[in-house]
């Protein structure tokens, strides 16, 4: 199977994530779209890892470990980000980013 299929799938998922970030006003959905973009990149890294393994490189485990670290960073980011969103919801009673764009008050 050509690896181009995986490239196109990852591009599609990444661009859907970008469209979601640009189109939606809900801060939680924007967060989920960022997760979607991270996942598109992860999928491409795993596909390239398999591609290099099949091409005879033996050190291709690094890509999968990189995906592992991306997952670690994403988990940390989500915990802090959701805490920030909850705090802002308590202060402003909204998660609309048009209201959240005024950081003060």
């Amino acid at each position, binding site marked *: 199977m050509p690896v181009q299929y995986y490239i196109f799938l990852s591009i599609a998922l990444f661009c859907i994530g970008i*469209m979601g970030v640009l189109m939606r006003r809900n801060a939680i959905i924007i967060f989920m779209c960022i997760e979607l973009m991270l996942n598109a990149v992860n999928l491409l890294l*795993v596909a390239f890892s*398999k591609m290099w393994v099949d091409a005879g490189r033996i050190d291709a485990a690094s890509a999968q470990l990189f995906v592992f670290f991306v997952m670690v960073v994403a988990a940390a980011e989500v915990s802090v980000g959701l805490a920030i969103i909850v705090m802002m919801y308590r202060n402003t009673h909204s*998660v609309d980013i048009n209201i959240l764009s005024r950081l003060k008050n």
Partner: protein
Amino acid sequence: MGIDMIIFTVLSAIAIAAALGVILSKNPVNSVLCMITCFVAIAGHYIMLNAQFLFVVHLIVYTGAIMVLFLFVLMMMNLNADIEPQKRNWLKYAGAISGGALLLVLVAALRDASVPAIQSGAPTDIGLISNLGKTLFTSYVVPFELSSVLFLSAMVGAVVIGKK
């Protein structure tokens, strides 16, 4: 068209349809459920690519932890009603057009990239936990320890921010 191509097509269709459902559905809870579907499809891709450890970690961390956290926050703040104002439609069109333009540029740039193909039938044990663990604890010990510091700071940050 082999069985792997059929599985790839089905999983990709599910993933893209679910991703579109995330950004198009009005109810945020539906968005989270679509996102879970998308993540399960991506996990299926991982197991098609011989990344068994990442398959399990992806299911546990993303589908089991992160998405449930999103769902908890949505339900705790009682956001399942549609609160998004529908004015300013041109912003949506501008976002869709710019995302589509990026899609077009990336596809056009990478269409003719000369890369080796994936042999779907060839089994590899590189995604098994023993291989990955050996590489992780020999070449990548320092990033591993640094990520533990990152997790600790994230935990403290979440508690401090959430307590106010």
